[in-house]
């Protein structure tokens, strides 16, 4: 919210994430997918474009897992709400097409 009223210096306005917060993976259910992704990054000079399959797999793992939730929420909730892969920016990786070039 930038306005004419300058409080002396420009300040960054944090915004909430589009899809909310990831529940914590308390039991490390998707940890192996994370390890695979981190290894891919280390092997590829931390280039995200070369590790998109691994990041897709991590998020798919989260979408498949159900965890018992706190008394404040629904009885069970996923580690990530189900979302079509295209809406997560993985449209080009569906059908097993690789985007490594």
């Amino acid at each position, binding site marked *: *919210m930038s*306005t004419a*009223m300058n*409080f*002396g*210096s*420009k*300040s*960054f*306005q*944090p*915004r*909430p*994430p*589009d*899809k*909310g*917060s*990831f*529940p*914590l*993976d*308390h039991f*490390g259910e*998707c*940890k192996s997918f*994370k390890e695979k*992704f*981190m290894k891919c*990054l280390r092997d590829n*000079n*931390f*280039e*995200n*474009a070369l590790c*998109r399959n691994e*990041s897709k797999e*991590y*998020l798919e793992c989260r979408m498949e897992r159900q965890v018992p*939730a706190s008394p*404040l*929420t*629904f009885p069970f*909730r*996923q580690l*990530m*709400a189900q*979302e079509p892969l*295209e*809406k*997560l*920016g*993985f*449209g080009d990786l569906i059908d097993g097409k690789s985007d490594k070039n």
Partner: protein
Amino acid sequence: MAAAAVGMLGASYAAVPLYRLYCQTTGLGGSAVAGHASDQIENMVPVKDRIIKITFNADVHASLQWNFRPQQTEIYVVPGETALAFYKAKNPTDKPVIGISTYNVVPFEAGQYFNKIQCFCFEEQRLNPQEEVDMPVFFYIDPEFAEDPRMVNVDLITLSYTFFEAKEGHTLPVPGYNSNQQLSPASNL
């Protein structure tokens, strides 16, 4: 005019706890805002020749005894491409601790192009004694970044997360507002 300023400052402070409340009652999904953002993600085209280095900082407020750090020092992305990064947090104490985080992006002008799809901020996160968890951030740089002439020389963006301990009656400081600029109702009229 001062009243409007106080009102807007108050609204900014209120936004974080209100969002927290919204998230806790409605759970995941954020369906109220997901509509157009998802469409943009689905249709955006990566700008492959515009490589940006993202670096990661992690801080904790002095009263929070967590070990909190990024799991990668940097990652190279391009605008229009979704990216995943991880932080890690451990509670080394013998009591459960609830933390809540906020984030900051520099340079300031690039922050408007930094879109978080999902992360771990603004919502209370509870770590049990000795527990360690991975904390993902799923984000993208808006493709319009590549069209903004002010961004021509920006090839490094730094994402900083800071965790605070969540306590009753504790309000989360919004980054960018110095404490000595807070306006109290009694003054400055």
